[in-house]
């Protein structure tokens, strides 16, 4: 009786926690893909510690339902869905591993080699598998008991990965930036890019041009430039309008991004697409620094629905009342950068061409989880 009561209060506790998280992302109290990813994985850790299930499908459904709820709370914060899909893939993988080792014939049970062959192969190729039935009855209990610590361990690894992402990306800086090179960065709000530049500055001497990105990131630009200058990097802040004229002198454009889509396209802060186009015209390489948690299995089916529109007051202040009445003011926060504009994506797994991103998607997510 007492134990049951404790369980109920625990569940209530968890529900309140989820509720609070949903409210926080709705109100943008948790913002930025890194913070959202971290918070989501920590929430999932709690959910899984409290979760009870008799069959793995139940757990998957539970997580999917939760995922749907979180995603609809803030559909443009793709990192949240990405983490949930990563965890789902983890759960499926762990359960399949257990099944294989329990039944002892994983080699034959697993579909033969490649997906192209899936037209011809069947799982019961050489007689029915005597063990396949046992997974769902007696042994089900023992699988469940085994699985939980593994999944929790997996999520903890994911959190560790998130925390060390900037480090592993920054360590590639020395290969990317040459001595005396001029770098242009249009995303001063990116922690990853900041660390990347600061770390590389320890070994290389280079110039950074920071684009102001009016109106959303002006203050951040100044902070960003200050940090670089303090680290001894020669830093110049330029206005957005100057980008094209100065591009001829730039060696590389390095940008951070909000999300990477499955086709290698980016959702980066507004203005990035234009700057990438300028870079393309001058044949200046465009390098993107991104953690894998930003990689979404989505395709840009409908670009407009992915782009968030922000505070118009930043473009036209309310004091300009006479103008406000007469013009439409829009302030999109993101830009869609097509994959053709990007030359290289540096992730914590290494550097990849944007048209390889679909492969990373297949490696890290399960196709059945693409729609939560």
């Amino acid at each position, binding site marked *: 009786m007492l134990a049951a009561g404790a369980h109920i209060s625990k569940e209530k506790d968890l529900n309140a926690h989820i509720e609070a998280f949903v409210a926080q992302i709705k109100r943008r109290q948790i913002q930025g893909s890194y913070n959202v990813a971290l918070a989501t994985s920590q929430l999932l850790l709690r959910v899984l510690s409290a979760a009870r299930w008799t069959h793995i499908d139940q757990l998957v459904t539970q997580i999917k339902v939760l995922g749907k709820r979180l995603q609809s709370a803030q559909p443009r914060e793709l990192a949240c869905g990405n983490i949930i899909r990563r965890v789902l893939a983890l759960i499926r993988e762990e359960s399949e591993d257990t099944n294989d080792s329990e039944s002892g014939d994983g080699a034959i049970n697993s579909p*033969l*080699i490649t997906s*192209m062959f899936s037209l011809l192969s*069947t799982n019961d190729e050489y007689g029915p598998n005597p063990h396949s039935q046992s997974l769902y009855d007696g042994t089900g209990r023992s699988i469940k008991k085994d699985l939980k610590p593994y999944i929790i361990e997996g999520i903890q690894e994911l959190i560790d990965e998130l925390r060390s992402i900037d480090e592993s990306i920054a360590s590639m800086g020395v290969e990317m930036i040459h001595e005396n090179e001029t770098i242009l960065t249009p995303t001063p709000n990116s922690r990853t890019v900041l660390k990347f530049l600061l770390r590389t500055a320890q070994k290389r001497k280079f110039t950074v041009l920071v684009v102001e990105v009016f109106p959303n990131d002006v203050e951040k630009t100044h902070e960003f430039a200050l940090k670089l200058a303090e680290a001894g990097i020669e830093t110049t802040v330029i206005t957005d309008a100057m980008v094209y004229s100065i591009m001829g002198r730039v060696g590389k454009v390095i940008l951070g991004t909000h999300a990477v889509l499955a086709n290698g396209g980016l959702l980066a802060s507004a203005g990035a697409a234009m700057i990438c186009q300028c870079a393309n015209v001058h044949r200046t390489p465009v390098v993107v620094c991104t953690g894998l948690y930003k990689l979404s299995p989505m395709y840009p089916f409908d670009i407009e629905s992915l782009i968030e529109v922000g505070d118009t007051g930043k473009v036209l202040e309310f004091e300009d009342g006479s103008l406000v009445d007469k013009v439409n003011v829009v302030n999109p926060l993101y830009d869609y950068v097509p994959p053709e504009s990007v030359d290289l994506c540096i992730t914590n797994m290494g550097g990849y061409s944007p048209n390889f991103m679909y492969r990373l998607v*297949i490696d890290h997510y399960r196709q059945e989880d693409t729609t939560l």
Partner: protein
Amino acid sequence: MTLSETTPLKLPPDSVASNGFDIVATYRRFLREDPDMTMPVAAIESLVVLLSQTEPTTASELMDILAKAVAELKKGVKNSISLSAGCDMFQRFVLRNIQEYGDWEACRRHLVKNGGLFLDRAKASRYRIAELGLPFIQDDDTILIHSHSRAVTELLLLAARHHIRFRVFVTESRPTAEGLSSAKTLRDNGIPVRVIVDGAVGWAIQKVDKVFVGAEGVAESGGIINRVGTYQIAVLAKDSNKPLYVVAESHKFVRLFPLSPFDLPNESPAANTFTTEQEDDEIQSSPLLDFTSDNLITALITDIGVLTSSGVSEELIKMWYD
């Protein structure tokens, strides 16, 4: 999806010849009797029928029989690119099973027993493609399709069933005029269609939001071999910055690396000669296929996922070199 119950293949009645087995005739009959069957699958099914009628005594005899039949089939059918994808995959599958498990007799039994299953799966894969491709179609889209492709049609019909409202430009696609049959199918299912002649694609392209084409074969580079006219549509789409999606089953991936349409096997040679004489049946000898290179293709929608063109070579390498 578990399709554990076995579905033996229904044999076309007179393919069971007493002495010689005519693989080309069997192949043709399969295609004729089931308009939904693709060429690679028909080739696979013909090979299954062959296996069911032969009693090889060794593994190498089995492979030899298959190799001969494949050669005969490729020689006997004029347009053999697509079917060679099926043949290659089939041979490779048998070979790998023999190498992996050593039990070639069991492999033969498995293939013969499940002949009908492959066909069902191939059809199911077309439905799976449609499901994967569904989000690519949105309300108020104007779509351009070329010629007749079962995979594309399936996708558009699924979208219509999901109450997505879109319009379709269909090219007539000379000289086969297969576009007309696409147009009819779509109109029968309530999709508004406008048929245009192939030459009008450039006129229409500005109004088009996206282009969908099928493929007869998908080459290793990720480029496609398809009904003639696809290349020029792809060039126009690229020029006006419209996405071009290829909708094709993964069993159409073929180990070819053409650089131009002239690298394709047995394409009508007459089209490449010039004459001062007036010819009556000139149009008939015009080429039926062309090659669209991978840089013109936005993405391939296949049953193994939405791939960029580099994904094709990866799948092929996995199959042949792993």
